[in-house]
């Protein structure tokens, strides 16, 4: 009772903050079941058994499923998911509460829901968001589900955490470099292959007087800026943590890497607002035609295909650059997780089954125009993925380096990203003119605070 009373203010504070801090909140789509429950006439092959189970239980009371999804930049994704949810609701006589939440708000809402003891039954989120919840027995163990489907070996890295198997891979989300081909041609430059090339190209095409900047890099925190700085440090030869989770970031190579990153900003190769730009900032800047090079998932590609075909014509899509020592593929995964305190876990499992129906899954992934690459075997040689414009995305998904690599896969890698340790350190060099070595010391301290916490 006392504990319950104590949790009241936290729940209230979290709920208020989650509601008040939402930048627009998520869209909610209730998909109520129809009266003709359990109809399997249009049920896809893989779901037929489950559908029959639903039919046999038609007389039973309607059950519920709370499903939180991330709202994607590519709107077709949420539309298709919503349709699928509605079909599921009808076939299984389940009242589904489907909520699409902007990625920036997802963590806040989840923390509030978890503290209130009322998490969703099923969550679809980025791996680095989901991994924060693998501790404290908050998630349902899923190794049985993992065995049920023919997952690509490289997708299982999302499923595994030190604590066990808790995440079901849904799709790969490769990250690439977008470069303005017309600007390269104008200056007779070769496409950049290394970080040094990037800086040289940016210097050559930078034209602030005409509102055009060489780079669309940002420092406002979030996966994009943390990912860029982390990649830069690693390609210079330093791992931020070793395989045992020991912090190893404070090296002369890492110092050079963060000096390089800071120089993009101090040399004004980016718009001034980049210093506080968030994860959507670079999408907007590139699509507005005000920057020459950005790193991003295929959300920019999909947006150009739909709305800016001219810009797509002027764009080169390249792998992430190499540093003096190494080169890494970038990106991440999207996963399903189920919360152990979820009240309708059976329905969550049924929906996962329904989702992985071969026809639906293939169609959903194709609709995403490369944003999503399948995690299941058997798709690579299909006509869609063999097309030249899609093949590159599939290849890129094979080289994605998991978050926190080579450190242990656990919640700590997500936590340092969440605290924006790297972005704040580079920001301090750019904004407060802090000595780069002191900024690197701050990174080491920030990482140790998370990795050495008992």
């Amino acid at each position, binding site marked *: 009772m006392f*504990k319950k*009373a*104590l949790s*009241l*203010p*936290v729940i*209230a*504070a*979290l709920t208020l*903050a989650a509601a*008040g*801090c939402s*930048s*627009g909140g998520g869209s909610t789509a209730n998909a109520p079941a129809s009266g003709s429950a359990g109809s399997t006439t249009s049920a896809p092959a893989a779901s037929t058994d489950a559908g029959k189970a639903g039919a046999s239980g038609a007389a039973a009371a309607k059950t519920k499923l709370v499903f939180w999804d991330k709202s994607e930049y590519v709107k077709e994704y949420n539309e298709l998911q919503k349709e699928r949810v509605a079909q599921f609701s009808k076939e299984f006589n389940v009242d589904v509460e489907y909520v699409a939440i902007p990625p920036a708000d997802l*963590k*806040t809402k989840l*923390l509030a829901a*978890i*503290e209130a003891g009322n998490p969703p039954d099923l969550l679809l989120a980025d791996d680095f968001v989901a991994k*924060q*919840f693998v*501790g*404290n027995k*908050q998630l349902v163990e899923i190794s049985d589900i993992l065995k049920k489907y023919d997952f690509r070996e490289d997708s299982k890295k999302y499923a595994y955490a030190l604590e066990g198997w808790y995440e079901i891979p849904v799709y790969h989300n490769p990250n690439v470099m977008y470069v303005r081909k017309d600007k390269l041609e104008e200056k007779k430059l070769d496409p950049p292959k290394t970080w040094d090339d990037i800086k040289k190209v940016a210097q050559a095409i930078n034209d*602030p*007087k005409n*509102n055009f*900047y060489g780079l669309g890099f940002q*420092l*406002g*925190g979030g996966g994009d800026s943390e990912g860029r700085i982390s990649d830069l440090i690693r390609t210079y030869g330093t791992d931020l943590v070793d395989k045992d989770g020991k912090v190893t970031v404070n090296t002369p190579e890492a110092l050079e890497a963060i000096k390089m990153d800071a120089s993009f900003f101090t040399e004004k190769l980016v*718009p*001034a*607002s*980049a*210093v*506080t*730009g*968030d994860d959507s900032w670079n999408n907007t*800047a590139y699509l*507005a035609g*005000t920057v020459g090079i950005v790193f991003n998932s295929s959300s920019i590609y999909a947006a150009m295909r739909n709305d800016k075909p001219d810009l797509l014509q002027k764009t080169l899509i390249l792998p992430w650059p190499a540093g003096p020592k190494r080169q890494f593929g970038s990106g991440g995964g999207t996963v399903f997780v189920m919360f152990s305190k979820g009240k309708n876990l059976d329905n969550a499992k049924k929906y996962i089954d329904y989702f992985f129906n071969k026809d639906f899954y293939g169609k959903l992934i194709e609709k995403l125009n490369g944003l999503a690459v399948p995690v299941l075997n058997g798709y690579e040689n299909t006509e869609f993925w063999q097309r030249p414009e899609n093949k590159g995305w599939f290849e890129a998904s094979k080289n994605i380096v998991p978050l926190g690599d080579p450190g242990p896969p656990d919640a700590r890698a997500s*936590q340092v990203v*969440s*605290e*924006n340790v790297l972005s*704040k350190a580079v*920001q*301090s060099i750019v*904004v*407060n003119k802090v000595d780069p070595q002191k900024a690197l010391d701050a990174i080491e301290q920030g990482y140790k605070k998370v990795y050495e916490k008992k």
Partner: protein
Amino acid sequence: MLQSNRRSELALGYASVMPIIIVIFVVIGIPFVSALYLSLTDKTVGADAHFIGFANYKEIFSDPIYWKVLKNTFVYFITDVVFKLIFGMIFALTLNQPFFGRSVVRVLFLVPWAISGLVAALTWKWMYNDTYGIFNQLLLDIGLIQTPIAWLSGPNIALVSVIIVNIWRGIPFFLFSILGGLQTIDRQLYEAAKIDGAGPIRQFFSVTIPSISSVIVITTMLSSIWTFNDFENIFLITGGGPLYNSAVISVYTYETAFLQNNMGKSLSVAGSIIPILLVLMYIMTRKLAKDD
């Protein structure tokens, strides 16, 4: 007999106020005391809280970021409230005069207060943008600047930018509160002052201000409390950046709770400003009691 009547009156009185006391205790008292207790623990989401004494308070008081954020909070709320009061007063005096289209102008002045905070914040964010925002475009066009101003990412200007938005949003509250007060002033007071030879300025300070002083105090105090706790405006426009240069206590509390997942520390940040808010509330309730 008399004593018995008094006793039953007293009992009836207590019985009447009891429901509201219970509601206040449950809705405000328990969460408040619990929040104070949790600020003395290592509470994180999904885990049990362990009592750690004043460790969180020691940590925040020795953290330069906390003091920077607290200073920003004072700069933010004092500047905002002063400017909102000055502009609110000027506009209220103007709108208290008869002129053609006064009703329309009054409605227009209500717009910043009436529209959603989210819409206002995002609109201002767009206008402040350094590459396609209207402010930079105008300044560039008229030749006042050569390169765009980093309204939201400049360390010295980000706080000013969010202050401007808060002033813009808050003026209508002052305006209409003061306007309401102005309309209750007896015109005869002004006529008497005129006969005594008082000019417009003397009339303002000797008649207007004393007549609406309680409105001014209450409006200012309420606005101070709201502005002190303002979150939405800053969070949506700058996120408190760059490097806490525009962060206030509420934004810092949010960051500690949700990005660092440190609820105990976050509640200690929130708890540390309770004495300041208590002083503001004391002044306000004292003024209200005096007026009663």
